[in-house]
């Protein structure tokens, strides 16, 4: 028995620590067998491809770039599959890889400004926001009458960082904690960025409502 190959014993070993979803930087001692890798890939990774593709499309606005980005992400995910703990939050893990791939390879190509100068301030809430015309200028009725394209355009017009948090939170339903991990920022920053993004989105919707004559 002691002559079993090292590879075999590695495959047979069960990971000892329950350390959750860590980044790719820290490779685990576990090593899945080939068929196990494929089953994790097919059962846990591939089901998220719709969300991934739509996210990629909203980052790049081009079908070919979106396809490249998604493919690169999935191939990377497969390469680093050993650092993924089976049964844990695959969607967040994949989104994180995608976001990093986007920053590394695609952001330079993006037609939008690379960085938005905004301040991440904790004390950004102001009840003046609700006292002044915000609620009266943008009526709920106008918003309810909007069609998908109008909302989509409003979202697309936001700078990429703001667009991203809205997509992750409102479209994909990630929690603040998941978003913090995906974007590699503190939860406080997730919240302040969301707040700012929503203000901007509301302004865009207000403008659309006006031009549509709502």
């Amino acid at each position, binding site marked *: 028995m002691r002559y079993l190959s090292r590879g075999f014993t590695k495959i047979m070993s069960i990971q000892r620590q329950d350390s959750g979803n860590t980044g790719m930087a820290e490779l685990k001692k576990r090593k899945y067998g080939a068929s196990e890798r494929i089953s994790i890939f*097919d059962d846990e990774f591939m089901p998220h491809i719709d969300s991934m*593709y739509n996210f990629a499309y909203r980052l790049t606005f081009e079908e070919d770039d979106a396809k490249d980005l998604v493919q690169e992400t999935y191939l990377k995910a497969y390469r680093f599959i050993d650092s993924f703990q089976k049964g844990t939050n695959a969607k967040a893990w994949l989104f994180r890889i995608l976001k990093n791939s986007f920053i590394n390879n695609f952001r330079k190509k993006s037609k939008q400004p690379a960085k938005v100068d905004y301040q991440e301030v904790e004390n950004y809430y102001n*009840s003046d*926001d609700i006292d002044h015309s915000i609620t009266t200028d943008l009526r*709920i009725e106008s*918003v309810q009458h*909007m069609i998908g394209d109008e909302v989509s355009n409003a*979202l697309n017009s936001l700078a990429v960082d703001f667009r991203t948090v809205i997509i992750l939170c*409102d*479209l994909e339903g990630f929690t603040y904690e998941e978003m913090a991990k995906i974007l590699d920022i503190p939860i406080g920053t997730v919240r302040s960025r969301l707040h700012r993004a929503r203000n901007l989105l509301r302004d865009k919707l207000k403008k659309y409502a006006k031009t549509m004559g709502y």
Partner: protein
Amino acid sequence: MGLYKWFKRAFAGNCDECLKLLELILDGEASDEQKKSFTIHIDNCKNCYEYYNLELTIKKLLKEKIESQPVPLDLVDSIKFKVRNNL
């Protein structure tokens, strides 16, 4: 003093506090206590109630009206092929 009265005294009419809670409520990140004090406030404050409703409507709009793009089929095939052939 009962808990309800304490909340009411502390938060009713305090819009700044309410705003801080609003997005937590919207995103399902609020604790039960926070939900309670928020509800008490918007029951008594028209501005905050309308603001909250507006934000809720926008969130629903995003979720329900934005159409998702179908994934190009050749992408799925390409990925599966490459993974199985170690490319």
